[in-house]
């Protein structure tokens, strides 16, 4: 008997292709967004790992010195004291390419000892003659992409400059890309360790020492030797832990996106539920006949679930294909953001993770089956009868619907509150959001009934009979219309919530930039980036700037990485004037008590994310590796800073100079004489800068613009995904509403028969869909705002340690609600046109 069921079902589906399409679309979009986000994340990690392989190899630990340098002699001593531990020297610095007006990373390695690190069959293979690299001075290798970028071939030369000395390096081989065996990452010149010393003119030092320590006991021994012999000036860093940390950082960024993709799947499930419900509804006569022909309930259930699995499978497959395309498109944006915020890696290849695809596929089918379960069970309850019963699916009474949904609403929100109150993780925050959304989705039917009643009361006059009729029918059929409305509400709320979060975030960053950028001009190494130590600006240059007539004052900053508690963090040493000090706004600590201690005591101020991540606050001490060993510094303030989510530590330059010996600065802030125009100041300062130096002058406005550009780039992907999810949700919901309206053909026939005119018919239908749209919008506003509150007050601090002020933009809310209404109205047009054209006799033939 079963084949009969399949024939009946499949014939129905092919006769209603748009319904099938809607279901497929719903599931495909959900799966596609999940696949896209997962794959971009996977690709970013792959790129990160490839970069790590190039720079770190198989090393497990790294020994770093207080100045980012380790003396040759220290290498020698360690190599002889621990002869059985594989170790290798590394120099990793940025150098300038004067002919290309850019910088590039110079990686100096010892191919011989590096091979020791990578033994046990995990040896990296180098596809060139290392003998040439080692024994011929000034030889280098790059990968093919970098060679193409720089316009060099095998055998040609490239000029690099460091510390004022230019060196020509001969490219002896072009290596493959990082993801191929023996490949290296883009934007990297690999040279022998001796060549690196010669290029950088640091003959006494290497950058750091990489070890491969398989035995934790060895790591302990090494650590002990460090503390006893080197007064803790050297630090052993666990590279695995560090790389895990960096990946964890990006996890916060991705948790936002993953939440978004789950939201997309949720909307997809609503669509599936809706579609399946209608498929069952529309086929109730077939189902009834099948039951009469002897098809069992079980067979019906299996057939419907099988049908949904097929839809789920096809939809998921489509979603995976679309997701791969989407991921490819998103890769560029993700790459930029990751580079802006986390680590310097070019993510240029989408790496397809089969597991991700499989999981997404299974999730797609699972979601479809789950959504189809209730309609499928309903279908089995259809009595075997040849009498065509229009009310085949007995609706629940409105009272019961209201009761159930009301309880759900209270339960979900209570649970959400509990989850948010008693958890610490960002993911719990997302769970909270989901619960709130679900709770509010549950009261959609209730809201429809209530709004319908209110509207009927408002439209009391006889003139509004068509509207009143429409409102009443909507409210009666609430168990059908409720789902689509809930889906529309979720999409709208997500749009509002994420929108408010991004707007608030941006506003806070803008305020912070306005407050922090106090100087008129900023001078810094144009090539300076967070991950390396650039060449320093000489003190004489600062004195020279100060001597200019147009200049009132300067402030300076020196940036470096320091080690504290086994991990590295950015330390900024500031010399600040009174104006510059006003640029710091303290979250904890009082400016009046902070600044008097600033210069002469061993005190630091830390950024809000740093304090959050490390669980530190004012009056806590942090121990930092200085040149003289580990020293304790008291935290006297926690300040607002959105520059880095890892956070950083700031110290006064005079305190810095008591513990480190560094000459020069990384940046200068120039404060103009109030009487001087900015343009004149710019000219005066520009005249002091050498043409071939890397120094760049920026105005505060320019810096602010660049910073906000980075911000916007970061949220571009969020916005883009939101747009994709929301748009497709709207289309899906539009389809769902359309389907509901088309279901009513017979009802419209009766209306026509009792004398409704064509325009009145249209009014009835449009009133119905408008009510759904309005309900969705009305509920979406509080849900969206709640979502924003959770994002801003729970998830952001938990993920990044940033606090921000919430800014609700009425325009954003209006726009989102307008789109919801528009979708609902659009869904009414075609059915209202059809309703108006219906022949009463045809429609009532079965009545």
């Amino acid at each position, binding site marked *: 008997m079963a084949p009969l069921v399949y024939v009946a079902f499949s014939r129905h589906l092919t006769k209603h292709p748009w319904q099938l399409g809607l279901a497929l679309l719903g599931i495909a979009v959900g799966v596609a967004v999940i696949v896209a986000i997962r794959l971009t994340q996977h690709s970013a990690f792959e790129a990160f790992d490839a970069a790590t392989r190039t720079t770190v190899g198989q090393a497990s630990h790294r020994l770093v010195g207080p100045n980012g340098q380790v003396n040759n002699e220290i290498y020698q001593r360690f190599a002889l004291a621990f002869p059985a531990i594989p170790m290798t020297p590394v120099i990793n610095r940025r150098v300038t390419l004067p002919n290309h007006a850019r910088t590039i990373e110079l990686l100096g390695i010892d191919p011989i000892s590096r091979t020791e690190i990578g033994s046990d069959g995990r040896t990296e293979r180098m596809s060139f003659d290392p003998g040439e690299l*080692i*024994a011929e001075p000034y030889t280098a290798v790059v990968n093919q992409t970098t060679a193409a970028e720089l316009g060099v071939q095998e055998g040609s030369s490239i000029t690099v400059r460091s510390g004022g000395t230019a060196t020509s390096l001969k490219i002896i081989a072009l290596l493959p890309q990082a993801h191929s065996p023996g490949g290296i990452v883009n934007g990297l010149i690999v040279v022998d360790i001796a060549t690196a010393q010669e290029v950088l003119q640091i003959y006494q030092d290497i950058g750091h020492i990489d070890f491969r320590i398989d035995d934790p006991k060895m790591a302990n021994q090494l650590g002990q030797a460090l503390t006893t012999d080197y007064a803790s000036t050297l630090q052993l860093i666990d590279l695995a832990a560090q790389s895990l940390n960096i990946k964890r950082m990006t996890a916060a960024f991705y948790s936002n996106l993953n939440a978004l993709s789950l939201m997309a799947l949720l909307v997809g499930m609503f669509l599936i539920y809706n579609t399946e419900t209608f498929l069952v509804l529309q086929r109730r006569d077939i189902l009834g006949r099948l039951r009469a022909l002897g098809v069992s309930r079980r067979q019906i259930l299996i057939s419907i679930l099988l049908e949904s699995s097929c839809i789920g499978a096809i939809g998921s497959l489509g979603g995976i294909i679309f997701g791969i395309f989407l991921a490819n498109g998103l890769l560029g944006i993700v790459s930029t953001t990751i580079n802006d915020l986390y680590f310097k890696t070019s993510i240029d290849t989408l790496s397809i993770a089969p597991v991700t695809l499989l999981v997404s596929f299974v999730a797609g089918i699972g979601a479809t089956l789950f959504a189809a379960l209730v309609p499928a069970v309903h279908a089995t309850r259809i009595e075997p009868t040849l009498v065509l019963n229009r009310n085949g699916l007995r609706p629940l009474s409105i009272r019961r619907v209201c009761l159930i949904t009301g309880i759900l609403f209270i339960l979900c929100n209570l649970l959400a509150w509990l989850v948010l109150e008693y958890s610490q993780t960002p993911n719990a925050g997302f769970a909270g959001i989901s619960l709130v959304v679900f709770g509010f989705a549950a009261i959609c039917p209730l809201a429809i009934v209530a709004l319908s009643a209110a509207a009927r009361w408002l439209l009391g006059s006889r003139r509004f009979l068509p509207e009143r009729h429409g409102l009443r029918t909507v409210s009666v059929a609430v168990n059908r219309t409720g789902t689509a409305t809930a889906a529309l509400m979720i999409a709208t709320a997500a749009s509002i919530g994420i929108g408010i979060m991004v707007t608030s975030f941006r506003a806070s960053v803008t305020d912070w930039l306005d407050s922090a950028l106090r100087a008129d001009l900023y001078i810094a190494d144009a090539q300076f980036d967070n991950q390396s130590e650039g060449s320093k600006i000489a003190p004489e240059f600062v004195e020279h700037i100060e001597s200019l007539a147009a200049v009132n004052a300067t402030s300076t900053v020196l940036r470096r990485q320091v080690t504290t508690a086994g991990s590295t963090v950015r330390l900024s040493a500031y010399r600040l004037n009174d104006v510059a000090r006003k640029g710091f706004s303290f979250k904890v600590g009082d400016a009046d008590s902070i600044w008097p201690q600033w210069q002469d005591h061993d005190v630091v101020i830390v950024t809000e994310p740093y304090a959050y991540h490390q669980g530190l606050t004012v009056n806590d001490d942090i121990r930092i590796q200085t040149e003289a060993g580990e020293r304790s510094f008291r935290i006297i303030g926690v300040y607002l800073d959105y520059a880095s989510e890892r956070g950083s530590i700031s110290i006064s330059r005079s305190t810095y100079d008591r513990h480190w010996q560094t000459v020069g600065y990384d940046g200068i802030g120039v404060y103009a004489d109030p009487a001087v125009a900015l343009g004149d100041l710019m000219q005066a300062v520009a005249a002091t800068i050498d043409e071939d130096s890397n120094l760049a002058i920026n105005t505060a406005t320019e810096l602010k613009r660049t910073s906000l550009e980075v911000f916007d780039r970061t949220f571009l992907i969020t916005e883009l995904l939101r747009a994709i999810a929301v748009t497709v949700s709207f289309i899906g919901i539009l389809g769902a509403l359309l389907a509901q309206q088309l279901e009513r053909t017979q009802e419209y026939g009766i209306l026509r028969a009792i004398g409704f005119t064509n325009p009145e018919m249209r009014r009835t239908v449009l009133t119905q869909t408008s009510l759904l749209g309005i309900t969705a919008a009305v509920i979406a506003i509080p849900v969206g705002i709640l979502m924003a509150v959770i994002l801003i007050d729970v998830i952001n601090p938990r993920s990044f340690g940033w606090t921000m002020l919430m800014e609700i933009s009425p325009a954003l809310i209006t726009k989102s609600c307008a789109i919801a209404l528009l979708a609902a109205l659009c869904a009414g047009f075609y059915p209202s046109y059809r309703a108006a054209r219906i022949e009463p006799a045809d429609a009532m033939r079965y009545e």
Partner: protein
Amino acid sequence: MPCVTSNMRGFAILLIAFLSLVGIHAKLTSSDENPRTVAGLLTESDPPPGFEYALEPRPFEFPKDHSAHPKFRSEWWYFTGNVESASGVPFGFQLTLFRFAMRPQSSQSNSPWRTNNVYLGHFAVSDITAGVFHNFERQSRAVLDLAGARGDPPRMWIRDWSIELIDVEQEVWRLKAQEADVGLDLALSALRPIAMQGDRGLSKKSKESGNASYYYSIPRMAVAGSISTASGFHTVNGNAWFDHEWSTSALAQGQIGWDWFSLQLDNGFDLMIYQFRTENGKPDTASHGVVLHPDGTSTKLSREQFEIKAQEYWKSPKSGLRYPIAWSVHIPQQALTLNILCRMPNQEWHNNFRYWEGAVDVDGYLGENLVTGRGYVELVGYE
């Protein structure tokens, strides 16, 4: 016929190990017309100009010549031996240091890392009772005293692995190596005078001039010292064999590998034979041997004068390669028939370069007399 070559082993190991460990290997394996054969590897790497070549027999001057010869491209010091503790616990050991010059000279530089020489070390202890083969590899550039060779007295080292002539008069060497919980500290005294290989120490590898090495051996050295493993510390005694060879060019064509035997018999005879295996399965003409008599005289053997037959095979569970582990050797001219059996099968190196180098037991007949002995066998190029 001038005694062509004797020992190719260090050469090829050195070259293959270096070239493969740092990558030419990848190039070779990926290219179809040049599969990874010994010949392929040796012909692949033409030395850069500027090195000296072994062209003529030369006067050797000891102890100076025990140290490094940096004008030649490659060089190795090769110690293998069989020892036993007082309580009879047997061990085999190998300590080898290779030097490889990538260029004839090092360029002038202020960087202490600048060098043209790299060193590779292989250290193995065969714990015969336990059946465990401990083997370790090290490599280092010759900078910052991390590796190198010194002349007076000769000392070669990679970090704390070292080979040093501690008594010039008595020709006593000290070997030290330690890795994880395996170590050795041995004193080796020469029981025979230094034996020049080939033509007065010039060992030709082919008919072309320059394809030769300078090569000498100390075929029998008395060993005393200690070996430690995870199972404990053992005071040991036994015999060892020492080879020292340096050259710039070594060509071997049509050869796929070789079997090399150094045997010390209890009756005072020492024996070194080797055969190159060719693709057609026949021993190559370069296969040769030498019998060192107790009275200090020696007899050179050409390929026709000895026969080596593999009797038993062992398949390495790690590499899947199949090595012979038992042989019968017949030298009619000397009335010598020997059965050679590995003391344990698992003595395979499977780092960057795969080969089998292991301790063996020997028994057989010299004429009518029963002889026994010990030795080392090296098997290269089994694929």
